[in-house]
């Protein structure tokens, strides 16, 4: 699960970076459409991951 959460964090950071490109000086209209499609696809993937993740609860010790 830590791996899943790390992957999710990485995906969100990646999406932020992709969206930041649209505000940067590197923005070109020619590349914009493809990059938008890529960002949109990533956001959908993140949404899927969020719904699929479940917490894992383990009782490791019992002191009664």
């Amino acid at each position, binding site marked *: 699960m830590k791996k899943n959460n790390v992957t999710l*964090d990485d995906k969100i950071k990646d999406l932020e970076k992709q969206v930041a490109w*649209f505000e940067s000086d590197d923005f070109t209209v020619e590349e914009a*459409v493809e990059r*938008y499609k890529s960002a949109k696809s990533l956001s959908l993937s993140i949404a899927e991951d969020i719904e699929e*993740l479940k917490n894992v*609860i*383990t009782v*490791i*010790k019992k002191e009664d």
Partner: protein
Amino acid sequence: MDLDQRQLPSFSVTQFIAVTNQMLDMAYPAVVVEGEVDSFKVNQGKYVFFNLKDRESSVGCFMMLYQMRTPLQDGMKVVVKARPKLTKWGKFSLTIDSVRPVGEGSLRKSFELLKAKLDKEGLFSPERKRLLPGSINRVGLIASTESAGYADFVTIAGQRWGGIEFEVYHVQVQGESSPEKIIKAIEYFNTREDLVDCLVLIRGGGSLDDLASFNDEMVVRAIAASRVPTVVGVGHETDTTLSDMVADVRAATPSNAAEIITPDKVDVRRYVDGLVQGVPRRIQSVLDAKVLSVGGLVERLDRSVDLRIENYKDSVDSSTKLLESYNPARVLERGYSIIRGSSSKVGAVVELETSKAIIKAEVKSYEEK
């Protein structure tokens, strides 16, 4: 020696005291006595003496200062777990194993005394508070798995987020042995090589007596000493225990503790969607700017072309005027005439053209200037 003396047990003083203590140990290896503290004092910074009394009687008590998990004062009602003993000086006393205040008044008093003591040491100072990690993936949870507070915590955490590993250390959260178990759990999470990201201590609501474990001095110190950042959520919103106060983050309730350590997936989804939704607006804004820019360039081009045409027209006009000024007809209009034929021979007939007529004339004389 008479018959009665022969039947009675006979001891030296030391033997008598030893036998009496043996009998006490057999009959009452441990007792629980409730009473009011009186004549409390601490000798040499480590020996605690007080009397435990009720309306009619009083018994001396002794304990070591380090065993005193909660401050005591004259007038406080307490319950002691103790061993009755006769000292070698013949004094009967209770050797205390544990003592705790009872009753709302005594519990409140004890709480205030300990709070003042720990506050003076700086344990509640805001400077000591650590921030929780930005991303929490592994949590050490200390709670009673049989409690409603635990169930609420797990439910809320599950609703808000997934992918977190909760390692649960089940303990009793009230009762005499509860503080030791809580301390053991804190030490367990603090002595592992792979530390969790944060430690959460929770317990549902209850009376001041029910929450006493979380006002225990050693529990509070264990939380303060934790290497792992701590979140404590004990009782209801209005309850504040010393464990709450010393934690890095205080949660109002176990449910609130779950809210503190987990992001809300609804908020995260909204944030992610918001990131992407802004992009088409940005593209449109850039395109609009480019259209405006092109429009501006076309306008400049138009103006430039117009200007050039104007300049060319002016130039052509000037040339036309100049050319017109060289027109022979204009010269004739100024009174000049054109002579055709050999005008240097006397008697020759020449043709004169003026602006209005053509005249034939004979040359009468000719002189060079």
